[in-house]
């Protein structure tokens, strides 16, 4: 374990130590988890949200099983932490897509469906990504390109949860009815030409919210009058063209989600019709021996009322306009990139006669310098966060290639939350909370080693530590939100973790992986933070094994183990405010037909029928099955 003091204007220290022995010779700047297309198929994920299951070490929490929040770094879960705490970001094909609403990530409204995804990379920790300071982590989605000529895909999945009352409904052995799961569906058509491609699609999903752990929190007459499922539908469009020595892409989508949405800070649901619109462009081109890159987008997220007897207080529209531009030029063996980033947020709410805006941004630079067997990669961004001053975010990584199978990387980073730039202030504003003056700051340094042992098996082992300052807790009653002085509710913490992964490589008959993450907290400034941080699990383990013993036929098994959690802010006389440890075994069977145009999958989740719940107020999931069909041409 290496700890390194960092100095800055907050005079905090932080450390991440990473020791990696991995599949690739490129060590990660911060911890990454890669989910590939085959992983998605084996696990039977048919919604983008479900892919979060593969982010080992990310503390995932959901009330309805449809919309999730996640803590990438084990800091307190949404609801235990204060509103407007910084969230992880979502990037689709290099474009930042705002998807956070009150801490929940509306991933079903992203302009990409799970059927279009090639891979997903989860990165946690403070990083600077293409000039953007990212405080806690990001989910980077990479889509598949359409095949040459015309192509299309149809997917459909439906499932059901065991435990229905059946004929015992008429007896004293009766029990509540439980969930149908789905349908989850996608339809898309695309065209791939020599220098351009385009595709359009639509994905939809529906999930019941009739679990008794949800319904019993409402008066029976009230719950009977609210929508019994959460439903989303999202048309998407994407086009790309190769021109001027680079690729240029346009991404667009319009999504709508209807149903109950749990507002963590309020600790109850509201009935919402949430719409999301996004259009963005990105690309690069070369001129005068310089590569120019750009990314810009305009998006909106609207929370409107869906007719119900529930109180509706969060109606608003938040609009985002943002972009980056950069120029990169080689100087000998080094590469220098300079650019500028800017974001602007506009809030229009029922409670406002006009609108409120915020903006932030500034210049950034990146330099990549080979030095002997090492490569130095440095990033810096000078961010002016509206009227809250200017701060410097920076990261540096030194990578060493020891031999053809081993590499070592050392990195350090420090990123401050920029609430005017990332729009995090909107949640607190809408919920009536005054934000503390300080801003959370995340700092880290680390070392990682990557190594491949044999051609088809690799392993990763990583140690890390991270320090956060000025984290806002939620330990006061709703009636006294962040009463003065607001800084009295801020906390400091140091997080230490270990991450290990073993995986097979290549296309052998057997494919599998083992992944384990453990994060512990220390240096907490008082008992309050120590209680809040128990809302995220200490241990997270996931193993998968699949085999294709017969052509066009694959069997897979998945084991997931996660430690239980305690949510002090959600403990009531009727609810212990805990989630049980997760012990889940899944199994799936896939068969390809019609020259692999058609894939059928039968999937069982939670074969042990153990309690599965990620939120103390959330639904509990029993043994369940899914059947899916995917037709591509």
């Amino acid at each position, binding site marked *: 374990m290496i700890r390194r003091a960092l100095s800055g204007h907050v005079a905090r220290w932080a450390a991440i130590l990473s020791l990696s022995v991995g599949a690739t010779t490129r060590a990660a700047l911060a911890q990454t988890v890669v989910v590939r297309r085959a992983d998605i198929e084996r696990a039977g994920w048919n919604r983008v949200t479900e892919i979060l299951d593969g982010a080992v070490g990310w503390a995932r929490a959901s009330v309805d099983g449809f919309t999730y929040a996640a803590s990438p770094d084990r800091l307190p879960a949404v609801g235990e932490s204060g509103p407007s705490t910084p969230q992880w970001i979502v990037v689709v094909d290099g474009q930042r897509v705002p998807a956070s609403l009150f801490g929940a990530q509306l991933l079903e409204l992203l302009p990409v469906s799970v059927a279009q995804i090639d891979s997903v990379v989860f990165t946690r920790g403070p990083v600077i990504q293409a000039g953007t300071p990212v405080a806690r982590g990001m989910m980077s989605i990479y889509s598949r390109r359409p095949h040459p000529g015309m192509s299309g895909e149809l997917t459909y999945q439906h499932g*059901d949860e*065991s*435990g*229905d*009352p*059946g*004929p*015992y409904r*008429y*007896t004293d*052995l009766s*029990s509540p*009815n439980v969930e*149908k799961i789905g349908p989850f569906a996608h339809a898309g058509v695309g065209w791939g030409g020599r220098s351009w491609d385009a595709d359009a699609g639509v994905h939809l999903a529906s999930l019941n919210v009739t679990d008794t752990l949800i319904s019993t929190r409402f008066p029976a007459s009230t719950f009977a009058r609210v929508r019994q499922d959460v439903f989303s539908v999202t048309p998407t469009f994407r086009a790309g063209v190769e021109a001027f020595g680079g690729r240029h892409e346009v991404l667009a989508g319009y999504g709508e989600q209807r149903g109950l949405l749990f507002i963590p800070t309020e600790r109850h649901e509201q009935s919402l019709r949430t719409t999301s619109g996004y259009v963005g462009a990105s690309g690069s081109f070369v001129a005068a021996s310089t590569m120019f890159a750009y990314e810009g987008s305009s998006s909106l997220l609207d929370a409107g009322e869906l007719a119900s007897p529930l109180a509706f207080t969060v109606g608003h529209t938040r609009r985002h306009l943002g972009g980056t531009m950069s120029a990169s030029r080689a100087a000998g063996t080094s590469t220098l990139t300079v650019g500028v980033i800017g974001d602007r947020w506009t809030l229009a709410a029922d409670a406002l006669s006009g609108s409120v805006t915020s903006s932030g941004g500034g210049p950034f630079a990146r330099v990549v310098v080979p030095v002997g067997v090492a490569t130095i990669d440095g990033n810096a961004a000078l961010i002016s966060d509206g009227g809250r001053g200017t701060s410097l975010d920076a990261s540096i990584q030194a990578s060493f290639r020891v031999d053809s199978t081993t590499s070592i990387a050392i990195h350090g980073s420090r990123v401050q939350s920029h609430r005017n730039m990332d729009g995090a202030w909107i949640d607190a504003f809408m919920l009536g909370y005054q934000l503390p003056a300080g801003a959370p700051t995340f700092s880290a340094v680390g070392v990682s080693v990557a190594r491949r042992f044999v051609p088809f098996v690799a392993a990763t082992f990583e140690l890390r530590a991270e320090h956060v300052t000025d984290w806002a807790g939620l330990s006061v009653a709703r009636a006294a939100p962040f009463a003065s002085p607001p800084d009295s509710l801020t906390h400091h913490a140091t997080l230490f973790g270990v991450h290990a992964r073993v995986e097979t490589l290549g296309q052998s008959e057997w494919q599998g992986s083992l992944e384990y993450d453990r994060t512990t907290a220390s240096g907490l400034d008082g008992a309050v933070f120590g209680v809040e941080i128990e809302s995220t699990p200490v241990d997270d383990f996931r193993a998968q094994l699949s085999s294709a*013993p*017969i*052509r*066009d*036929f694959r069997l897979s098994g998945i084991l997931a183990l996660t430690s239980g959690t305690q949510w002090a802010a959600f403990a009531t006389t009727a609810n212990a405010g805990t989630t049980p440890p997760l012990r889940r075994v899944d199994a799936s069977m896939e068969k390809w*037909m*019609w*020259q692999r145009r*058609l894939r059928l999958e*039968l999937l*069982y989740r939670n074969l042990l*029928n153990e309690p599965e719940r990620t939120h103390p107020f959330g639904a509990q999931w029993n*043994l*369940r*099955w899914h059947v899916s069909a995917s037709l591509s041409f």
Partner: protein
Amino acid sequence: MAGFVHPRPAVPLGIRRAASVLSFVSAFATSNVVAAQDKSPTRSAPFSRLTIRAGALWQTTDDRFGRLYSPSTGYSVEVSMPFDVGEFALAAERATFTGLAPSPHPDFHGTVGMLKWRVALPNVGPLTVALGAHAGAMRFSFQDTVIAPGLRKEMELLFGVNAVGSVRLPANFSAFAMGEYTHVHLHVPVHMMPLSVGVGYGLTTPGWLSDFLR
């Protein structure tokens, strides 16, 4: 329902009927032995043959459920074909379950859909026996006009094991008897032991279908 005991025969009526039919079919088959052992599922190329089976269905249930409902004679259909290992089958069964006195609950139609996988044991003369497991879902369609229409149907997961014995008859026909043990994953689990007896017909899988399945 406490204290109520439904009168049950020592051997369920359905089972006795099935045994009678099976013994008749076996006797008929024995006199029509066809040297067709090479058409047993495990010896055929994957997807090369289709066997369609249809029969009458009788079933018994666990005692707890049997005190509430009595299943009537139903029917079963199945389509199977050889796979690289063993054979796969898609099967459906349907029967009506009648509420029992003294306070009968609403009847329901029980429809079962299953995916089965079996491996054949060595043939014994004209008799082929295969054992395997199955998974699927059971749909409960309640004949209850009082409750909301949306609550009149439920679907529940099931797992089980099964065995089928068949003897070949002339002209690609066969006779079969099939037994299953099924666990229906209701909140209060139900265990069913269906027995179906009927006739099967084998045919070469149409080219378009075998191509599709590959």
